[in-house]
């Protein structure tokens, strides 16, 4: 099947979560797109499909998955891909995204985004699964850099080099999670500038902005707090270099009233506009 590239789409949006479904369906909210968690709508029928269709009547939708398990040595689940393809046909999304990570192996599913060593072997496994998924879905995937809490001694390349090679070998695109860069760089004692060095920014189609929390030993990517200043600062630093990308606020827990999140969306717009003016 021919693989279709995601469109160049510039806009500001929000990760749509249950407490705000009704607000988004009842009234046009000031966003250019919404992102939904794919798995929440990969069902046989009922309210979830009714909701996604009503949301789609008003907004462009990006499908964001957490269970494709692309980095596993196991082959990507064909049943999962068929369901995702059916959802994509129903929604006609801007793109389909998931993560540069793995979730399980040998029939075990952790339901967490587990880290990969940045080795040729891991790259080969990831490339094989991304290629299968892109063939089944008929479109290039948009893949997100992970937050990581562990570094592997075996890693032979930086995360940026690993992502760059992944894009080159599969034709996939990137979802740059600015919070994840901050969390990973901090947890591994690196500067964010070093972390970004060599990242193919021209492949970025979407940006996530989110919050984190301070765990006992390291930062945890909890998505349960406002976007903190260091993440805004990092976004401001390279927003002008990203060009036409979709940017959104991602909150998964301790979800505040919609207005609070829309104010964060507006703040992202202002930072992007200001960065563009400075670059002009």
């Amino acid at each position, binding site marked *: 099947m021919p693989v279709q590239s995601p469109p160049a789409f510039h806009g500001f949006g929000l990760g749509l979560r249950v407490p705000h479904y009704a607000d988004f369906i009842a009234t046009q909210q000031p966003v250019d797109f919404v992102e939904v968690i794919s*798995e929440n709508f*990969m*069902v*046989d*029928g*009922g*309210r*979830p*499909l*009714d909701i996604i269709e009503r949301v789609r009547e008003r907004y462009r939708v990006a499908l964001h998955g957490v*269970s494709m*398990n692309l980095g*596993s*040595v196991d082959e990507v*689940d064909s049943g*999962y891909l068929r369901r995702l393809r059916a959802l994509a046909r129903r929604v006609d999304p801007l793109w389909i995204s998931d993560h540069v990570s*793995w*979730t*399980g*192996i*040998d*029939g*075990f*599913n*952790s*339901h*967490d985004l*587990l880290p990969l*060593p940045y*080795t040729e*072997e*891991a790259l080969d*496994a990831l490339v094989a699964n991304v290629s299968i998924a892109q063939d089944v879905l008929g479109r290039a995937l948009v893949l997100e850099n992970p937050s*990581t*809490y*562990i*570094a*592997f001694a*075996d890693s032979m390349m930086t995360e940026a080099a690993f992502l760059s090679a992944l894009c080159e070998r599969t034709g996939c695109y990137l979802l740059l999670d600015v919070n994840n860069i901050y969390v990973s760089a901090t*947890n591994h004692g690196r500067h964010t500038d070093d972390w970004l060095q060599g990242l193919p920014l021209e492949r970025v189609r979407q940006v996530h902005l989110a919050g984190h929390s301070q*765990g*006992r*030993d*390291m930062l*945890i990517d909890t998505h349960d707090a406002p976007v903190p200043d260091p993440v805004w600062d990092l976004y401001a630093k390279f927003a002008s270099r990203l060009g036409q990308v979709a940017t959104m606020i991602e909150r998964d827990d301790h979800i505040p009233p919609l207005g609070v999140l829309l104010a964060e969306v507006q703040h992202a717009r202002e930072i992007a506009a200001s960065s563009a003016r400075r670059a002009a």
Partner: protein
Amino acid sequence: MSLHELQRRFAASVAGQHESTDLDARGMRVYANNYRGQLIATLRDTYAKTRLWLGDDDFDLAAGRYVDANAPSSWTLDAYGLGFPEMLEADYADDPDIGELAWLDGALRRAFGTRDAEAIGPEELVADDWERVAFVFVPSVRFRHLRSNAVAIWSALANEVMPPAAICPDDGRGVRVWRRDLSPQFASMDAGECACLDLALAGATFGEICELLSRPYPSLRVAAEAGRLLRSWVSDGLIETLRQE
């Protein structure tokens, strides 16, 4: 170490089955906590009324035991915890209300995303030979026998009123769960309806259901009782189509 071996060890460590000495303990603690926290949160969400009934501490202890014994295998968290009611029934064998409440929580959740199906209306209750008519139910229909008053407890908890004390009438009653349009529903059933629904879901014909009803009811009342049941199933939106055997 090969990637396969690394991922195998990593997964075992995350699931608490094996502590990996070659992986950074601080980072592995985060992944292990994420794993356990996510699964317990899923059980809390799916079995919300059971949690209210048991209390947070006892519920979390039970959820922790379940997580220890049941690693997830599906890509969807909707599939996690299907065996939780069964575990509670075994753990609280003298308190059947607890496992039955969990069954009701779980059945209502599963009804939420089942395949859409249009139920027939009363005007479509037409057949040439009723004796040989069987029923195709909408896919969300589930039922079970109950020993306790779990339905009354669930309703009170849902309505945020004082729930009744648990009792065990053990009188053959049951509960059925289904989805009407987009909303999961449930209804109590007496022993007769339980037996008939059990039979009908297994593919029995209307004639066979009438035969079952002829045991408790005098022959003159069998047709009326069978008709009453059938009308209630249709008016509740339980039947997708009639099938002539």
